[in-house]
């Protein structure tokens, strides 16, 4: 980003898109080459079946990698899984990977984990790539300066068959978060504030470029948290320009380039960052110093307030948001004017592709050290991958969590979406470090979710209610 301005300055998005354009399609869409394809057990089996029906094979098997995350239990991962349907999905993925020569990071590999945790930690995710996965949180990989987006199963088939997608080029909005975050404010709060400000549909048709001093100061893991929730703001793709933080994160990663090749890679990575003077369809600026710990109160991730604010009423929002707000308050059983602090919780969940990395667990453990999980609260800590679990064990984090009354689990998506045994029951309220507070998202059709940072979840677990984690940090 410090390079001199070229004659024709471009955004990272445009550089990456142009480098991967195979051709313009007759429809006007672009045929885009996909550099890295990640697959998991939920959205790939039908794609492999369609491929077989068409008599095709995987065109670039070395550019697709598989893991298992959504359906894997987090208590006992021994095979066969006790859930027959989960076992059938796992078996199908094993079979498909074997038949097509796709590398599968299963539990025995020591590299299993949530797809958006393992791609980065293995060094597969690199700046300047196009990355696709049948999972909306693929935007996570944008933290490295990749153009990464979620796709559906028919598009998974397209990538398996051709390593390409037919795509319409989005516009690019830069979001500058200036200044410095105050203590106790995390990447999760930044992205919740961005979504609150721009709305859950504000990003439709856009790629988000996150920039500014706050993003530059963030670690790669924090940038992943921000990019992860781009889709919750409607943006299919969000990214941060690669810099020295990115290069040093990748150095030494198992599947990253090595030696002289790494230096050549790093030079190319630095060059894909947006040029000074590049033009954007839109620029939005937020002052990082004004962002507070943030909590959702509603049924979409844009319905959030700062920890010291009160739940809004219909008079506080524009006309067209009133029906959605009324529905949210009725579902959540919250009253306008009620402080969000003090809201009682039944379950606390720390994990997910948003906040299941080692830095998240370290921060949550700082809080867990200060007390014990409140009576009647069920609290889970689920590492995002086997590698995260090993690192946490090396640092003694499981002991800290267990001593405080948290359950320490095996890696997986767990209670983010409840396709596994971890689920809310009935009307339970869950303080969750995950990414979606949709109705029924955490497995009970009437369950309720409050999204917040891992530190805020840990503090809520100890208090038995939503509380400002800065009081205990």
């Amino acid at each position, binding site marked *: 980003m410090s390079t001199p301005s070229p004659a024709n300055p471009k955004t990272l998005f445009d550089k990456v898109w142009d480098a991967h354009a*195979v051709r313009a399609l007759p*429809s006007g869409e672009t045929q885009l080459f996909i550099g890295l394809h990640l697959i998991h057990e939920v959205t790939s089996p*039908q794609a492999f079946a369609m491929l077989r029906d068409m008599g095709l094979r995987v065109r670039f098997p070395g550019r697709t990698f598989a893991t298992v995350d959504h359906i894997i239990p987090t208590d006992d991962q021994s095979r066969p899984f006790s859930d027959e349907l989960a076992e059938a999905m796992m078996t199908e993925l094993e079979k498909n990977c074997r038949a097509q020569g796709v590398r599968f990071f299963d539990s025995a590999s020591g590299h299993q984990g949530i797809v958006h945790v393992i791609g980065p930690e293995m060094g597969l995710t690199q700046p300047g790539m196009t990355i696709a996965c049948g999972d909306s949180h693929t935007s996570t990989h944008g933290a490295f300066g990749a153009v990464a987006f979620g796709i559906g199963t028919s*598009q998974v088939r397209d990538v398996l068959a051709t390593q*390409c997608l037919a795509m319409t080029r989005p516009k690019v909005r830069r979001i500058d978060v200036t200044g410095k975050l105050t203590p106790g404010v995390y990447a999760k709060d930044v992205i919740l504030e961005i979504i609150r400000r721009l709305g859950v549909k504000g990003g*439709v048709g856009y790629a988000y470029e996150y920039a500014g001093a706050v993003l530059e100061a963030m670690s790669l893991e924090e940038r992943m948290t921000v990019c992860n929730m781009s889709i919750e703001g409607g943006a299919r793709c969000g990214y941060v320009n690669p810099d020295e933080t990115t290069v040093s994160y990748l150095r030494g990663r198992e599947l990253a380039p*090595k030696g002289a090749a790494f230096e050549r890679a790093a030079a190319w990575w630095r060059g894909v960052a947006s040029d000074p003077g590049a033009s954007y369809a839109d620029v939005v600026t937020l002052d990082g110093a004004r962002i507070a710990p943030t909590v959702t109160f509603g049924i*979409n991730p844009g319905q959030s307030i700062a920890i010291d604010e009160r739940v809004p009423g219909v008079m506080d929002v524009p006309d067209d948001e009133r029906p959605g707000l009324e529905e949210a308050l009725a579902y959540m059983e919250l009253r306008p004017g009620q402080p969000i602090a003090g809201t009682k919780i039944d379950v606390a969940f720390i994990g997910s592709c948003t906040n299941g990395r080692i830095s998240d667990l370290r921060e949550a453990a700082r809080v867990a050290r200060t007390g014990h999980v409140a009576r009647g609260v069920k609290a889970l800590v689920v590492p995002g991958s086997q590698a995260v679990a090993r690192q946490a064990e090396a640092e003694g984090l499981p002991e800290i969590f267990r001593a405080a009354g948290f359950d320490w689990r095996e890696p997986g998506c767990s209670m983010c979406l409840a396709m596994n045994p971890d689920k809310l029951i009935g009307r339970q309220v869950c303080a969750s470090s995950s990414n979606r507070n949709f109705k029924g998202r955490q497995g009970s059709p009437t369950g309720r979710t409050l999204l917040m940072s891992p530190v805020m979840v840990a503090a809520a677990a100890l208090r038995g209610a939503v509380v400002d984690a800065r009081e205990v940090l």
Partner: protein
Amino acid sequence: MPAQILRVAARACVVRGDDIDTDRIIPARFMKGITFDGLGEHAFEDDRAQAKGDHPLDKEQNRGAGILVVGRNFGCGSSREHAPQALLRWGFRAFVGGSFAEIFFGNCTSLGLPCVTLEPNDLARLMDAVEADPSQAVEIDLAAQTVTSRAGSMRCKMPEGTRKTLVEGTWNATAVLLDAGDAIEATAQRLPYVADFAA
């Protein structure tokens, strides 16, 4: 080669509300399986259970509807193609709305299910008209870009590239993408992470 989709004419059903996410369209527990079979009956399962028979999909007068009329940002959230697959298996062949989430929109296109948008006033009029008389035929004409009902003929929108793929019958992208032939490998070989510094 998939069929050209020029128009969809059917009775319509209105599901009001903005930001209806794909977890609501098909709750995750129904995605346990290796096919899309049987998803249709679970479309909007939890919303329907909570509405106790009063959900638009459960109303007698909406039985057999082939067009779903929705609000803004329909299909947000998860990328699960299970959502349009469930709606397709329920019997819907097209969607008219205020706006659609991008991944949902792309998934529908891959299945040959048009998603067209109307201006807010037109959408409100269409919703009122369909609810007042669900027996009427609603026609989406992708060539003329109109939605016609007893509320009149309204101008609808769809991104031009997508409209062309539906009208020309090239919406099943695999065949189109394969047509690029060796240009795919040639593009790969120009990428330094493929050709130069691959690990």
